């Protein structure tokens, strides 16, 4: 494995104005009728339905697992979501509740959301989730170490966690809202990819701003450059703040135009969201019936 310093040094500078302008362009596209329906179904299949609250209960997690399998039964032919995202102590329960539905269980770990604890505890956290059957681990990077310039530490930590994941796929949360600049986001993306992250993810959802289009674009470009260099694909997961279908469609356009069709699959692209699913469902029913919908007729999320 090459020394991490070489990656951080080779991160190209990000043209902030250019990125923001480019991200804006994706928001001017008009997606209608058939393409829209296809996009909406794709969004549903890419959602990591998430509950990460201190007040989560077994009942809440079971309800979420049921929703994941039965998004809106009165509309035929809907996909299920990609995964359920919960805290480690709910992994076993979610696994049981999802049964053989093929919906994955993702668990946050490594002292989510702050990541401020020792490496041993973080690794235990990861192993616990993996032992209980988590298919995917969402880790947070040590932002404090990153800002202190200890990029080697951040790199090593991700590599260790990846090791502890075993066969489970690793998503690396950069928490872009705490990184400050696009240059930092790019640097953190490069470190996470080099250290073996299967996915890079924008945010925990606990910090504002969470996922934005420009910041996601910076990360997508890091993935693209890595792909050009090595031929390896890395997944992307924007999380937090994507709550309506229109915005999610714009994200898909951005992914397609930055990375290409291969990434338009829930193996490589996810939305971390909770309220997005209902908005997409309302749009789908609107397309089917011609009438704008009310949240009163959809399950609570």
């Amino acid at each position, binding site marked *: 494995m090459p020394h991490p310093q070489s990656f951080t040094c080779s991160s190209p500078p990000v043209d902030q104005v250019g990125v923001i302008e480019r991200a804006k362009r994706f928001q001017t596209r008009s997606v209608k009728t058939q393409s829209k329906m296809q996009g909406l179904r794709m969004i549903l299949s890419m959602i990591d339905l998430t509950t990460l609250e201190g007040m989560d209960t077994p009942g809440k997690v079971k309800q979420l697992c049921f929703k994941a399998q039965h998004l809106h039964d009165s509309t035929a032919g809907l996909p299920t979501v990609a995964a359920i995202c919960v805290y480690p102590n709910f992994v076993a329960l979610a696994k049981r509740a999802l049964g053989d539905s093929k919906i994955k269980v993702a668990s946050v770990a490594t002292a989510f959301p702050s990541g401020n604890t020792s490496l041993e505890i973080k690794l235990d956290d990861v192993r616990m989730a993996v032992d209980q059957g988590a298919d995917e681990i969402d880790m947070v990077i040590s932002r404090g170490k990153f800002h202190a310039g200890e990029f080697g530490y951040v790199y090593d930590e991700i590599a260790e966690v990846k090791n502890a994941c075993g066969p489970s796929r690793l998503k690396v949360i950069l928490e872009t809202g705490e990184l400050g600049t696009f240059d930092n986001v790019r640097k953190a993306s490069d470190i996470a990819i080099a250290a073996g992250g299967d996915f890079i993810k924008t945010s925990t959802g606990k910090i504002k701003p969470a996922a934005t289009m420009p910041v996601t674009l910076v990360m997508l470009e890091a993935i693209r450059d890595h792909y050009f260099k090595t031929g390896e694909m890395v997944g992307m997961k924007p999380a937090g703040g994507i709550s309506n279908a229109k915005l999610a469609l714009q994200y898909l356009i951005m992914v397609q135009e930055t990375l290409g069709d291969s990434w338009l699959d829930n193996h490589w692209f996810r939305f971390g969201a909770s309220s997005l699913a209902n908005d997409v469902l309302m749009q789908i029913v609107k397309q089917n019936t*011609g*009438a*704008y*919908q*009310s*949240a*009163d*007729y959809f399950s609570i999320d």
Partner: protein
Amino acid sequence: MAKAKNNSALDSVQILKTYKMYIGGNFPRTESGRYYSPQVNGKSIANICRASPKDMRNAVVAARSAQPPWASRTAYNRSQILYRIAEMLQGRSEQFVAELQIQGLKTQDARIQVQATIDRMIYYSGWCDKFQQLFSSVNPVASSHFNFSVLEPTGVVVLLASQTSPLLGLANAIAPIIASGNTCVAIANEDQPLSAITFCEVLQTSDLPPGVVNVLTGKLDELMTHAAKHLDVNAIAADQIGTPNLEAVRADAAGNLKRIADLQIDWSDDNQAQNPYLIEKFCEVKTTWHPIEQISSSGSGY
């Protein structure tokens, strides 16, 4: 040097004002980019946004999110805000008179209409904390229960505003709708929408929370279908939109059990336009059964 004939640059250069719509406390243009120019005596008077179904949707979203907090304000506070609207109207009354004249009204009629609008806002301001006492009841029941009925706002109300009374008709219909805690999406008079939008400038500066009143301009027959079919709209107030239109709205609304109020009101008539039953029209009655125990052998349970 030649003396300029007009004092104002705006008078000398004839550029029509472009009015925007009022959604969620902001003044956006229509997302569709479509405009129309209503005419008076064969002359265009302004550029007006022609709202699309998506604008309607956005307005309903704004109204829906504004509704619970608006309803949970105290009745007294809603009353204060309605009174404030009247005060702001008073301060800008000359502008409204001038604008009504642009829309074809005679000066005297315009003055009467503006004054009536101010009076009606004060009238409904007074009712905010009084209609509940009038329409609620404690009901006698044959069991040991305290049984009472109270009014609750119905939710989001779409107003298909008067096509004859551009300012008074709109404001006079909005006031009783919002008095009880409903929020409103109004579709303004198609041919005379100017004062509706200027009225929104009054609303915006009257402490009325964003989204409580939203005003769209455009073609009634295009927008009313989407309003009637919209599942998140709880009621429609139709102000003399004609029998065929009303039938169409009723048919479209049947699928979601929407409340339809057919307002047959002459807004210039105090006796018709000042009426607490207009508040009651946009409320639902909630009846609660509360068990009581017999605490006194002399009869009274509570």
